[in-house]
């Protein structure tokens, strides 16, 4: 870290601010943030380690590569739904109908593709459009009539469940052909080993490249580089080693499912949109203070519409992924715990129920926690009754952590 000449960097001229330098500084800054209630991803990572240790000690199969690959197959569908939930939660809204939308999408897929014999892409498009339309309806109800999303989506939950049952008719279930790409994508297709290793290297390389570019540009305009080179290199090294180890371990078994790859790609795209675009800034602004956002010239109605439409479209996609995983469109699709699992995953991952805080990564980490619990309990041969109770408990803990962290942030002046 070299400040240019005698003149202090533009952002280093105020003597009241402690400037954290190097790796020790970065760690000290992190501890300060956690103490003041800015927990970020910490609770979910601690939770994951805890869950893995408990289940592994009860049944070592839990951490076997093949079981983890299965877990990833299962995680993709709910993960997609949860990613959409993150969008509406950031606005401080909620969509309770994502389970029903996912079920409806799987029914539409089954009816158009198998019953009517039309091409799959058409079926997928229709299902996605149906999802987007529902989001449009919720946003319009909220924008025009001020109907709280809690109520409108609860009504939507019932209405779409009805539509799903109506579409599936008396038989109640449509089997999707096993030999089709759709089903093989949901059950069998994994990445080739060399490709997965390449993918494991990509984030580190990207991080290094972006980090160096950022440091160069900041130095050019006389801004300081907190942490500097050492922290950047340490981060890149830790991330790359972690990913390489994970990929290597999973490749001992079946490998990494393409379906999970699709989900991670969506998470990365959403993360970019939320943190690096004007739209993402507007999302957080509306979630933090709607009136201030409106007075800044942000079209609040349009932002809400985009969030609800994204949410229900992703829910429809999740429903189709679930259908391809199960090779069927049934009356049970999207019912039961799908809804709450998706919402719980987002909250467990660290997206606040109160709006204005959250991240696309919370969908990824949260859904892995949810699936790990469900997978572990299944391995222990415990019934779904117990699974529901334990998942409910974990959700309650996550919300309590969110609430406490929020109070702590308020008292530390961090909103």
């Amino acid at each position, binding site marked *: 870290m070299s400040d240019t000449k005698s003149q202090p960097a*533009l952002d280093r001229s*105020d003597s009241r601010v402690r400037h954290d330098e190097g790796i020790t500084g970065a760690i000290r800054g992190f501890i300060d943030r956690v103490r003041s209630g800015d927990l970020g991803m910490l609770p979910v990572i601690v939770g994951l380690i805890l869950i893995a240790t408990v289940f592994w000690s009860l049944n070592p199969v839990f951490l076997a590569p093949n079981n983890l690959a299965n877990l990833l197959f299962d995680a993709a569908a709910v993960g997609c739904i949860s990613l959409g939930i993150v969008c509406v939660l950031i606005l401080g809204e909620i969509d309770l109908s994502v389970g029903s939308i996912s079920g409806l999408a799987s029914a539409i897929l089954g009816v158009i593709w198998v019953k009517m014999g039309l091409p799959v892409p058409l079926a997928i498009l229709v299902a996605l459009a149906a999802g987007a339309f529902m989001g449009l309806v919720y946003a319009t109800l909220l924008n025009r009539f001020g109907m709280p999303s809690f109520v409108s989506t609860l009504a939507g939950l019932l209405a779409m469940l009805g539509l799903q049952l109506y579409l599936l008719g008396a038989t109640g279930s449509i089997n999707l052909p096993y030999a089709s790409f759709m089903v093989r994508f949901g059950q069998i297709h994994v990445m080739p080993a060399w490709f997965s290793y390449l993918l494991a290297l990509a984030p580190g390389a990207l991080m290094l490249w972006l980090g160096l570019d950022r440091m160069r540009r900041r130095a050019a305009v006389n*801004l300081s580089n907190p942490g500097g080179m050492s922290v950047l290199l340490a981060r890149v090294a830790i991330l790359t080693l972690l990913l390489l180890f994970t990929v290597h371990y999973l490749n001992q078994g079946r490998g990494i499912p393409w379906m999970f790859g699709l989900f991670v790609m969506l998470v990365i795209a959403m993360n970019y949109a939320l943190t690096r675009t*004007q739209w993402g800034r507007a999302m957080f602004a509306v979630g933090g*203070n709607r009136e201030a956002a409106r*007075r800044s010239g942000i079209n609040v109605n349009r932002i809400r519409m985009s969030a609800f439409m994204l949410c229900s479209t992703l829910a429809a996609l999740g429903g189709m992924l679930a259908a391809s995983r199960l090779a069927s469109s049934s009356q049970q699709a999207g019912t039961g715990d799908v809804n709450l699992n998706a919402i719980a995953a987002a909250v467990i991952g660290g997206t606040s129920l109160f709006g*204005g805080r959250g991240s696309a990564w919370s969908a990824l980490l949260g859904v892995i926690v949810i699936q790990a619990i469900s997978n572990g309990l299944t391995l222990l041969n415990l019934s779904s009754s117990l699974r529901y109770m334990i998942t409910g408990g974990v959700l309650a803990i996550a919300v309590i952590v969110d609430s406490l962290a929020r109070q702590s942030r308020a008292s530390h*002046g*961090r909103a």
Partner: protein
Amino acid sequence: MAESPSSSQPILKLRGVSKQFGAVQALTDIELDVHPGEVVALVGDNGAGKSTLVKVLAGVHQPTGGTIEFMGKPVTMDSPGRAIELGIATVFQDLALCENLDVVANLFLGQELSPWALDEVQMEVQAWTLLRELSARIPSVREPIASLSGGQRQTVAIARSLLTDPRIIMLDEPTAALGVAQTAEVLNLIERVRDRGLGVILISHNMEDVRAVADRIVVLRLGRNNGVFTAEDSNSDLISAITGATENAVSRRQARKLEEVGEAT
């Protein structure tokens, strides 16, 4: 209306603007002209309609009657975004900033640089430059707004209004939460903005500030125009226009003080 000091065409021209909230007539037939390079102070007692007028001009509320002309053309401002587009920047007294975003994000909210790949470095540099210009005492622009004091927030809000390169700036009680040095800086800033040929509408209860910078002082009372003054006019005239009577709480208090002084000597 008094003769306007400038012969040029007004940037903003209000004729007969009214606003009704249910049974309450908040504004009645308001007339207001703002010329380029002119500071117009808007004064009045609590409930005189100053803030309502500001919100109408900022597109937050829609007027129930009258016309607003901007640069000679009649306009309707149906949203705050429309007002900003036209070139009317507003510093609100309340609800202006998002507490969960940092200073840079708040400054550029709604007009971020390169919308599809936010240029954080450039935004941070511009933020520091602007805050330096206002001699703002802000320790770090990467902290959430929630960690700033009231005065620091006010400075951020003022800085933001200057970012959009507006034609006219409205400041609703800009100095209410500021320290002595910052107040002086804001007044300097108002003069600098005026010298650049922008119109300024200043709302303040502080007559000292108003007299220091205003070219014209427009008095509102109970939602109506109640006279136009200049800084040269006497304080008692101004106060009687604001309170609506020559015989009022302020004059009685002054008379009593005078009597006390008279008795003492």
